[in-house]
């Protein structure tokens, strides 16, 4: 750390031109965001007397949403509305999520492009032609409304774009730092990123894949490492409402799928022989091992997917559960305890962000190494 700090300070001082352009982008993003701030014109229900339901609150925060709910101001929610994009029978339909006026119970009907839409538990439904209100069956599922194809820029999509922009900024600056230096010594932010990149190369790539073949996989390993890490960190920022991107099963599924596809396509003769016809064991054992190995091929990416999803979601749930203790006991006396504990868990979660990125990357590298291993 003591070697990083002077370099970082130097980077901040020297690279003020980059900082200036970054500042411009940052402040225009902030002003753009403020212009979207929507105030609710009416509040649907006043639930002052209803008992506090921690499970509903936690699920609401862990799930994806169509708006950034920032805070409540005098009983009115202040939020950053995100656009809703739907593919319906009439083609692409778009409107702002502020038109629902924070209604999540399906009361407010929005008419757009010849269709009528309601929002129910953060899902958009299109009402049937004759329906005027949403009707429910016994399981509280709507009976007279269908889900159109939802392509909305939700909270998670928005945070993913921000993380992509930040990663692009960091790594393009790093690359420029190498290009501009005369003697190959990294300048600016590159001095901070170099140890991290070398860590991925020397601690993950080389030992897991092997000296000769690791280079082909380094771009992928570096990408998933930093992408998962930065999204894990974004998930812990409270003002962003904890956009729980890496605790979203679709996100982790996609990343695990990439690992699975790369493993499958880089598998050599040896890898497939170990799956379908295990060498060195008797024939009945070969027949017995084949289905197990085939199942194992699919279990590996599934366990990658569930590990990241469950770790990050569990972290969010614990922090929110500790916070909701205050409201469950309805007492300020609980607050110091619950704040102290959630601070403790948050610090642990900051370590977990890095560990989970590391684990996902090292296991991917391990699978690539297994797929490309030569006969011995």
């Amino acid at each position, binding site marked *: 750390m003591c070697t990083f700090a002077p370099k970082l300070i130097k980077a901040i001082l020297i690279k003020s031109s980059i900082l200036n352009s970054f500042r411009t982008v940052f402040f225009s993003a902030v002003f753009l965001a403020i212009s979207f701030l929507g105030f609710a014109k009416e509040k649907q229900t006043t639930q002052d007397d209803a008992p506090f339901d921690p499970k509903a609150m936690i699920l609401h925060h862990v799930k994806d949403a169509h708006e950034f709910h920032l805070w409540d101001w005098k009983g009115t929610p202040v939020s950053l509305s995100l656009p809703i994009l739907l593919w319906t029978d009439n083609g692409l339909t778009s409107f702002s999520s502020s038109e629902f006026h924070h209604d999540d119970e399906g009361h407010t009907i929005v008419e757009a492009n010849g269709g009528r839409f309601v929002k129910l538990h953060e899902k958009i439904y299109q009402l049937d032609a004759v329906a005027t209100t949403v009707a429910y069956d016994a399981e509280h599922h709507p009976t007279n409304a269908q889900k159109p194809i939802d392509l909305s820029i939700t909270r998670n999509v928005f945070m993913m774009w921000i993380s992509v922009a930040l990663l692009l900024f960091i790594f393009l600056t790093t690359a420029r730092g190498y290009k501009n230096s005369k003697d190959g010594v990294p300048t600016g932010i590159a001095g901070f990123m170099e140890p991290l990149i070398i860590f991925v190369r020397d601690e993950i790539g080389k030992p897991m894949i092997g000296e000769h073949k690791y280079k082909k996989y380094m771009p992928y390993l570096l990408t998933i490492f930093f992408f998962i890490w930065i999204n894990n960190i974004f998930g812990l920022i409270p003002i962003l409402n904890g956009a729980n991107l890496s605790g979203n099963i679709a996100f982790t599924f996609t990343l695990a799928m990439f690992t699975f596809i790369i493993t499958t396509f880089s598998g050599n003769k040896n890898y497939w022989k170990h799956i379908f016809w295990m060498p060195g064991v008797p024939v009945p054992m070969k027949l017995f091992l084949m289905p197990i190995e085939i199942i194992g091929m699919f279990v590996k990416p599934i*366990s990658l997917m569930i590990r990241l999803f469950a770790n990050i979601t569990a972290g969010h749930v614990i922090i929110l559960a500790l916070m909701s203790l205050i409201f469950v006991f309805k007492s300020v006396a609980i607050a110091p305890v619950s704040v102290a504990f959630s601070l403790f868990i948050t610090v642990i979660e900051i370590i977990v962000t890095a560990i989970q990125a590391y*684990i996902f990357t090292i296991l991917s590298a391990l699978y690539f190494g297994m797929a490309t291993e030569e006969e011995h």
Partner: protein
Amino acid sequence: MTITGIAAIGAGLAAIGAGVGIGKIGGSAMDAMARQPEMHGKIQSSALILAAFVEAVALFGVVVAFLQG
């Protein structure tokens, strides 16, 4: 007892299993590091990977408990 209660017990059992597993890994890694301090880095990274494997099984249990509870 409701299904939620049973799911909570299941999550607790999963936590016990993971605790025993990770405890054994951590203890053995500490022993190994004390015997061979020069292998510190390698032992630590493989202990972390093994802990992740154990934890994954516990998290499967927790996810099932979530879905049920």
